C-alpha cells in the first residue's frame, strides 16, 4: 500500500494544465494542418498587397493622360493610324496583284539571287582578307596571292548547299554557278544572268502595272489626303510629350522628397535628421505649367476639327473608287479587307470633330474610371513612350477562346471515353485504356507545349493548306501558333481530368439502378443513357467544370503555343477568329513578370491579372464541388 501512496494522487495534474507531451504533439500536428490555411491566406494577402496598389497608380497615369492632353491628341492620332494602315493595305493589294501576275519572273529573280548570294557569302570572308592584303601597301602581295589560290580551291565547296531553284532551267542554274566559280576573287558584281532576270522582272512589273495606273494614282491621292492631319498630329504630339515629361519628373521628385522625409523621421541622430529634412525641403518640385500648353491646344481645336471634316469629305469622295477589282487571290483578299474597313474609318472620321469639341481636360479621373479601364479596356499596351494601357479584355478573351476550343474537343472525348470504359469495355480493355490516359496526365505541360511548337503546329498548318479544306473559315491558317493549336493541346490536358472524374461519377452510381433498369427489360444502351448517365450527371458536370478550371489556369502550353499576340481576335471572320494568335492571362504573367521593375504600375497590373485568374478558378472550383457533393447516392 505504501507504494501506492508514494505516487501522486492525481497523475494527470500536469496534463490538465496543458504540459503533457501528448498534448504538445497534438498541437504540433494541429499547427501543421493549420499551415494550409496560412498558405491560403498568405496567397490572398500577398496578391492583394501587390495588386491593390495598381489602381491608384493607374488612376494617376490616366490623370496625366488627360490633363496633358494626350487623350485629346489620341483622337486625331488614332484616325491617322487607321489612315496609314488603310494605305498600307491598299498598297499591299496593289503589289500583290502585280507580283501575282509576274509571279514566274519574281520567283526566277529570287532563286537566281539566292544562288548568287549563297555562293557570294561563302567567299566573302576570303575576299575581305584579300582586299585588306592588297590595300596594305603591297608588302603582302604574296599573302594576297595565297588567298587567291585558296579562294579558287574552296569555291567549288560552296556548290554543296545551294538553295533549290524549281523555276530556273538546269542550264540557267549551271550558268550562274559557272560564272561564280570561274570568276576571279576581285569581282563583286552581280552575274549578268542574275541582272538579266532582275530586269526581266522589272519589265514584267511595268507591263502589269500599266493597266493599274488609275489605281496607283487613287492610292497616292488617298495617301496624300492625310498630309495635313499628319502634320498637325506630329506638332501636337511634340508639345504634349513635353508636358508629360515635366509632370512625370515632378512626380519623381515628389516621391523622392517623401522618401527623404520618411528617412528623416527614422533617422538616428539629430544632425542627420536636420540634414535630410533640409534636403527634402530643397527638393520641392516646381509645379509644371499644364494650363498654357493646354490653352494652346484648345485654341487650335476648331482648326483640327475642320482638318478632320475636310479629310472626311475627301475620303467619302474616294471611298467608292477605292473598291478595286483584282484577279489575284491574295490581292482580292486584301482589297476586300480595305473595302470593309473604309466605311468604319469614315464614320470615325465624321465623329471626330464632335469628339474633339466635347473633350474637356478638366473632367476628373476617379478610381472607378481606373477600375473600369482595367476591366473593359481593349488594349494591353506596355513599355511604350506614349501611354501604357492595362486592359484585361484581350487576355481574358484569349484565355476563354482557348478554353472553349479545349472543352469542345475535351468534353466529348473525355466523357465519351469514360462512358465507354466504365460501361462497355471489357476488363482487359480497361487495363490498357486507364494507364494510358493516366499517363497523359503525367506528361509535363512544357513537354506538351514543345510538341505543339515542333509537331502539331506544323501539322495543323499543313492540313489547313490542303485545297479540299479551303472552304473552312480561317483556312489556310496565317500563323502556325494560334488559338486552335493551343486549344487542341489543352484538350489533351483536360481529357484525363474529365475522364477520371466522370468515370468516378459513373462508377459511384449504385449498381441497383442499372440492375433495376435491366430487370425492367431495358437494353444496355437504354440503361446507360437513360438511367446511369442521368444519375451521374452532376458528377460529370463537376468533372467538366474542374477540367475548365485546369485549362484556364494552364500556363506553359499557352505561353509556348498560343502565338502571344496581344489583340482581341477579329470576329468579323466568324469561326476564323479561332485560327488567330492570342495572348492569355496566364501567359502574360509568365512572360512579363521577369522583366518589369518591382513595384512599378506594370508589375502591379500583372498581380491584378493574377487576382482575376485566381478568383475565376476559385469560383469555378467552388461550383464544381457543389455539384460533386450533390452526387451522394
Amino acid at each position, binding site marked *: 500500500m505504501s507504494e501506492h501512496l508514494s505516487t501522486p494522487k492525481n497523475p494527470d495534474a500536469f496534463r490538465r494544465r496543458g504540459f503533457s507531451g501528448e498534448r504538445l504533439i497534438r498541437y504540433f*500536428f494541429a499547427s501543421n494542418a493549420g499551415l494550409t490555411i496560412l498558405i491560403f491566406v498568405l496567397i490572398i494577402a500577398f496578391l492583394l498587397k501587390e495588386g491593390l496598389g495598381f489602381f491608384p497608380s493607374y488612376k494617376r497615369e490616366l490623370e496625366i493622360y488627360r490633363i496633358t492632353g494626350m487623350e485629346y491628341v489620341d483622337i486625331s492620332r488614332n484616325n491617322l493610324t487607321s489612315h496609314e494602315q488603310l494605305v498600307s493595305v491598299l498598297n499591299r493589294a496593289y503589289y500583290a496583284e502585280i507580283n501575282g501576275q509576274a509571279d514566274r519572273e519574281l520567283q526566277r529573280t529570287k532563286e537566281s539571287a539566292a544562288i548568287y548570294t549563297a555562293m557570294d557569302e561563302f567567299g566573302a570572308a576570303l575576299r575581305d582578307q584579300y582586299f585588306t592584303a592588297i590595300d596594305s601597301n603591297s608588302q603582302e602581295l604574296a599573302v594576297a596571292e595565297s588567298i587567291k589560290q585558296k579562294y579558287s580551291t574552296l569555291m567549288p565547296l560552296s556548290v554543296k548547299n545551294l538553295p533549290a531553284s524549281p523555276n530556273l532551267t538546269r542550264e540557267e542554274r549551271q550558268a550562274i554557278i559557272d560564272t561564280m566559280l570561274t570568276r576571279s576573287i576581285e569581282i563583286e558584281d552581280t552575274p549578268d544572268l542574275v541582272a538579266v532576270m532582275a530586269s526581266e522582272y522589272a519589265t514584267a512589273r511595268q507591263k502589269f502595272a500599266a493597266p493599274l495606273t488609275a489605281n496607283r494614282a487613287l492610292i497616292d491621292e488617298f495617301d496624300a489626303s492625310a498630309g495635313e492631319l499628319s502634320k498637325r498630329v506630329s506638332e501636337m504630339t511634340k508639345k504634349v510629350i513635353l508636358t508629360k515629361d515635366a509632370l512625370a519628373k515632378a512626380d519623381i521628385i515628389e516621391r523622392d522628397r517623401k522618401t527623404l522625409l520618411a528617412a528623416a523621421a527614422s533617422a538616428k541622430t539629430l544632425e542627420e535628421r536636420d540634414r535630410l529634412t533640409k534636403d527634402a525641403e530643397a527638393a520641392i518640385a516646381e509645379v509644371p505649367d499644364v494650363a498654357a500648353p493646354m490653352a494652346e491646344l484648345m485654341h487650335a481645336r476648331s482648326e483640327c476639327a475642320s482638318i478632320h471634316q475636310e479629310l472626311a469629305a475627301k475620303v467619302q469622295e474616294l471611298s467608292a473608287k477605292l473598291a478595286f477589282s483584282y484577279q489575284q487571290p491574295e490581292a482580292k483578299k486584301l482589297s476586300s479587307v480595305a473595302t470593309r474597313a473604309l466605311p468604319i474609318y469614315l464614320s470615325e472620321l465624321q465623329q471626330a470633330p464632335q469628339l474633339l469639341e466635347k473633350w474637356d481636360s478638366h473632367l476628373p479621373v476617379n478610381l472607378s474610371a481606373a477600375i473600369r479601364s482595367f476591366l473593359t479596356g481593349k488594349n494591353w499596351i506596355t513599355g511604350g513612350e506614349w501611354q501604357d494601357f492595362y486592359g484585361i479584355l484581350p487576355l481574358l478573351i484569349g484565355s476563354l477562346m482557348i478554353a472553349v476550343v479545349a472543352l469542345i474537343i475535351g468534353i466529348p472525348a473525355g466523357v465519351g471515353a469514360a462512358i465507354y470504359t466504365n460501361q462497355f469495355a471489357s476488363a482487359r480493355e480497361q487495363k490498357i485504356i486507364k494507364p494510358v490516359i493516366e499517363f497523359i496526365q503525367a506528361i509535363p505541360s512544357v513537354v506538351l507545349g514543345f510538341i505543339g511548337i515542333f509537331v502539331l503546329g506544323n501539322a495543323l498548318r499543313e492540313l489547313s493548306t490542303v485545297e479540299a479544306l479551303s472552304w473552312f473559315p480561317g483556312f489556310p491558317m496565317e500563323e502556325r501558333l494560334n488559338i486552335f493549336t493551343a486549344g487542341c493541346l489543352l484538350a489533351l490536358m483536360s481529357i484525363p481530368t474529365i475522364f477520371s472524374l466522370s468515370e468516378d461519377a459513373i462508377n459511384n452510381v449504385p449498381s441497383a439502378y442499372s440492375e433495376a433498369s435491366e430487370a425492367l427489360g431495358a437494353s444496355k444502351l437504354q440503361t446507360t443513357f437513360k438511367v446511369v448517365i442521368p444519375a451521374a450527371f452532376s458528377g460529370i458536370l463537376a468533372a467538366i467544370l474542374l477540367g475548365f478550371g485546369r485549362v484556364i489556369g494552364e500556363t506553359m502550353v499557352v505561353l509556348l503555343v498560343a502565338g502571344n499576340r496581344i489583340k482581341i481576335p477579329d470576329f468579323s471572320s466568324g469561326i476564323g477568329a479561332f485560327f488567330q494568335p492570342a495572348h492569355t492571362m496566364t501567359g502574360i504573367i509568365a512572360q512579363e513578370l521577369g522583366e518589369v521593375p518591382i513595384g512599378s504600375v506594370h508589375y502591379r497590373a500583372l498581380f491584378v491579372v493574377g487576382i482575376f485568374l*485566381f478568383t475565376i478558378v476559385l469560383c469555378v472550383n467552388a461550383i464544381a464541388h457543389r455539384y460533386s457533393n450533390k452526387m451522394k447516392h
Partner: protein
Amino acid sequence: MITEEQLIRKGTPKGRRLDLLTRALLSGITYSIVVVALLLFGKIVVDGAPTLFTTKAPFINISFLTDKNETLHVFDDSSGKLHQLPASKYNEYLTTHGEDAIYNHQSFSYSGGGIVGPIVGTVLLTIGAILIALFFGVSAAIYLSEYSKQSPFIHAVRLAILNLAGVPSIVFGLFGFSVFVLAVPVITLDPSSRTLLSFPIFIGDYFVSFQGWNSSLMAGCATLACMILPVIITASEESLKAVPQGFRDASLAMGATRWQTIRKCVLPYALPGILTSSLLAITRVAGETAPIMFTAAVAAKDDLPWEGLSNPFDILSSQVQALPYHIYTLAARIPNSEFTQRAQYGSVFVFLLLVAFMSFGSMILRAKLRSRLKW
C-alpha cells in the same frame, strides 16, 4: 452462339443497329485518345532516342547526361567537312587551327554539350520540395485522420486544402515571388533597401530583415512544396485511413497513448502507401515550370550548383537550371534547325523518360501494395 442475354430476352432486341453504332462511336473516341497519346510519345521517342542511345557499347550516350550545357558552334573546315562543336571544344579548335580555317560559322545557344546542369537542378528542387511537403503534409494528414473531430478549424482546413488544390500554378509563381523571393525574413548584416521591416536582434550587428531569399534554390523548393502540399495531404490521409481501425483500438486498449499508437501501429503500415502516392507528386513537382520561373530557375549557368561555393549552405541561395525551364528555353528562344534538334528532342526525351519511369513505378508499386496489404 447464344448469349445469356439472348436466352432471357428471346430474339435480338430492338435498336440493335443503334447499339452497335453507339458502341463503335464511343470506342472510336476512346481509342483515338489512346492512339494520339501513343503517337505523341512515339514521336518524342523516335526523335529523341538517337541523342541518348548509341549503337556502340555502352549504348547510352553518357556525355549527354554528364556534360554541361554550352553554345553549339557549327562550321565547315577548309576541306568542306562539317563540324559541330560545343563552345569549349570550339575554342580549342580555334587555337589549334587558327581563325581562318573556318567557314559558314553559325552558333546556337543552349544547344551544345549535355544537360547535367538542368538535371541536377531539377533533382535538387524536387528533393527539397518533396522533403518539405512530406514533413508538413504527413503531419497535417495525421492530425486530420487521427485527431480530428468535427470542428470549425477542421472545416477550414479542409476548405483550404480543397481550394489550394485548384490554384493555378502561375498563381503559385506569383505567390512564391512575392513571399519567398521578396518578403520572408532573413538574418543579415545589412538589410536591403527594399526590406518590408527590419529590426536588430542584438547578437553582433545582425538584423532580422523581411527582404526575401531572392531567386534561389530554397525559394523554389518552398514554392513547389506549397503547391504540392494539398496532394500530399490528401494522399497521406487516404493511406492513414486505410489502416484498419482495429489496430488503433487494440493499441489504445493496451494502454498506449495516442502518440504511441500512431507511431507504432498506424504510421508503419501507412508509410508505404504515403511514399507511393508521393511518387506521383514528384512527377508533378519535377514537371512544373511556372512556379520556378521567377523563384529559382535560370536559363544559363556555367557552374553546377555546388561548384565555386565557399560555404556548402550557399547552395540553398544559388539559382539553378531546371529541366522543364531548359526545355521551355529550347522551345521558345532558339529556332528549330537540324543542329538544335539533338538538344531539343534529347532533353525532352530524357525528361519524359524520367517522368514515365516515376509514374509507371508508382503505378506498379501501388498495385503491389494493394495485393500485399490486405487486412
